[in-house]
């Protein structure tokens, strides 16, 4: 969701975005079949670290959340919970068609079709699981977006929080579960 590029960031934010762009830590949420694509991007052939990107253990420390596959309602709850545990500025990159329009599971009762309705996705990568080249290309685009200050899905999430929350409740009835019985 690329906004028109009226660049109203002040200098300080520009520098901040420069740093955020050049050192993106990712928390990849291995749902579905996309997870297997990431190790090759990190290892010697494609070496994601050249772009300043590297894996991090917890959402608290991560900048970008990679959703790599279809999302059942249970997983969606966990994704939303992790997303809210991350600090802003945070970005979301969605892999594959399952996150765009449900992919091959579009008519399944268990999965959600459009990820964008629940959490603000900054960047989609087409492909029924994109190969590492596609992922590297997407990351390069993400870096330029951040530099230009266009990757502000997180601000959009904060501004239309009720809308998102309503969508989430419509499909999940309850996002944060308070006792372990009705999972």
């Amino acid at each position, binding site marked *: 969701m690329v906004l028109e590029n009226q660049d109203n960031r002040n200098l300080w934010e520009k520098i901040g975005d420069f740093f955020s762009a050049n050192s993106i830590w990712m928390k990849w949420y291995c749902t579905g079949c996309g997870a297997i694509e990431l190790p090759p991007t990190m290892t010697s052939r494609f070496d994601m670290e050249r772009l300043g990107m590297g894996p991090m253990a917890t959402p608290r420390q991560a900048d970008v959340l990679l959703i790599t596959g279809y999302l059942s309602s249970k997983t969606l709850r966990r994704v939303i919970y992790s997303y809210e545990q991350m600090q802003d500025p945070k970005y979301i990159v969605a892999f594959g068609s399952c996150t765009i329009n449900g992919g091959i599971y579009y008519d399944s009762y268990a999965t959600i079709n459009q990820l964008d309705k629940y959490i603000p996705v900054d960047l989609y990568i087409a492909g029924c699981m994109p190969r590492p080249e596609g992922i590297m290309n997407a990351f390069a685009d993400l870096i330029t977006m951040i530099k230009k200050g266009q990757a502000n899905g997180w601000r959009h999430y904060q501004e239309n929080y009720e809308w998102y929350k309503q969508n989430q409740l419509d499909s999940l009835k309850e996002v944060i*579960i308070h006792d372990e019985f009705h999972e």
Partner: protein
Amino acid sequence: MTLITVLITLLTLAAVTYLLSLVNSKLGAYFTIVTSLATIVMLFLIKDSIGQSYSLSFFTFKLTTVGWYFSMVMVTVYFTTAFLNPFWIKKMIYPAAYNLFFLVSLIGTIGMFFARDFITLFICWETVVWTSTFIIQMGKSRKSSYVYYVVSAIGSMVTLFAMMLVYQVSGTLEISTAFSALSGQPVLALIVFFTFILAGLSKIGIFPFHVWLPMAHGSAPHTFSPVLSGGLVKMGAFIAYLSVTAFAAYEVFANTFTIMGIPAPLYIIMVLGAISIVVGTVMAIRQDDAKKLLAYSSVANGGYILIGILLYDQIAFAGGMLHLISHALASATAFITIAIVAYRTGTTKMSELGGMIHRMPVTYTVYLIAIISMAGIPPMGGFVSKWLILQGLADRGLLFLAAAAFFGSIGSFMYVFRPLSAVFLGQLAPKYEKIKEANIMMQIPMYLLTIATLLVGVFPNVVLRVIADIQLEAGIQEIVLVGNTIVVSNGVLDALRVFIVFGYGFLIALVIFILRRKSRRVTLMDTYTSAEFIHTPELLHYSSNFYAPFERLTKKPYPVLNLYEKVSIKIKEIGHMAESLFSSSKPAITIFWIIIVFAIFFLGGVL
């Protein structure tokens, strides 16, 4: 204001406290605070008449700087702990007796530190022993006060043997001159040395005799265990001091073979001290009850004090003496804070506690400063004394003692941090949501002790100057103090400058922290749990068997207590054998024994 008037006023005050607490026990408890305060004031008044000696029927006293120093350490612990008495007195079964024994044991310790002859030393020692036995019984277990009495009795009886032996050899009971007669017979000197120092070892809680420490401190009434571990352990240090100065161990054993430059008997005792450091640390790490953990830490710190004092040179001796006051302050504060937590929550078991910082922030900070000093970390007093001891050991090249000392000081980070994170930090269980902070009366001693620990840490020379006088009085080279720095043959320490630079660093970090964006406050339950939803805080609190891998390494070490139980079972068997052999309801057996005795004696006589 002579020492005798001090003791007599204290005795009358103790009697008044007893009568008061018969009327109303809370009033009596408050009066114990007044009495211990009066002791401090009086001790300061008689500070200038050092060197005079007094006598009261068969008690004789001599005012010495070392005695003054020891009693000052003791009285500070008693005074600060007395503040807790009013809140626990209702739980005591004999409140009046508790108040009386609390003060009588204080008077006993002061009498002991100023004793001039053996009998006064022994009488004051025993009064402290039996009064504290009857106080410990008011705690959770009778067995622990029984074991406490037996171990102290072993120590004191053996020391009485040494005293009488020396009296017979030298003809005089005066401590300072009696031992000099021993330089003649080396064998007798050895016997006297090992028997005399035994009481010290049993009181400090050195390795074979440390059995009573965790039991007594763990189960004594909450207001008496700070006194037990902070104060009464120091009586043993005084005996160690006597065995080095009055007994002049270094001259008497000058010609015995030396290990690593130290006369053999002294080295054996120091090795025992080193073992007790290791045992104390290893056992402290395993404990689940906070009070038992602190008790084992007293065993470990007792080892430091013993090694420091027995080295009897310019550096390590000063370190040992300084460690006396820094350990006393630190362990007294730690025990008081744990007592306050127990007062509010009713338990000292770490696995049942957690997150106290949210309800008792003041107690938390006081405990933090206490454990920083107990672990020997720079800005606090514990560091300066441990630094002196380690420099002393390095100066004389005592490798094995130093190894134990290092293990002890680094191990202390582990066992000191365990209560901090298990009791104070981590998740707060819902049932403790309503507990309140310690009330004002309890906070006063905590503030006093914290300020004292800080002062000893940042301005150690105030205390070291007194220790230098002690060294002069004991006739060894005194420690060199230049302004605020301690100059030692292989190192220099300026505790104030360390504190200032630490503050400077802290300031820079604070500035960076404030410059950056304000962080969003989040509840404790909103933590990273691999996206699992959690509901019960107490299950999320990590506190039981905190150091599981390390505990697996040191599987159950040999419990020394079994040794004592084996001996007592052996005595019971002999007793049972004697009983069944000699006294039975049939006369024939006794007549049989009469004939046997007659036959044996007849043969004996004839030969």
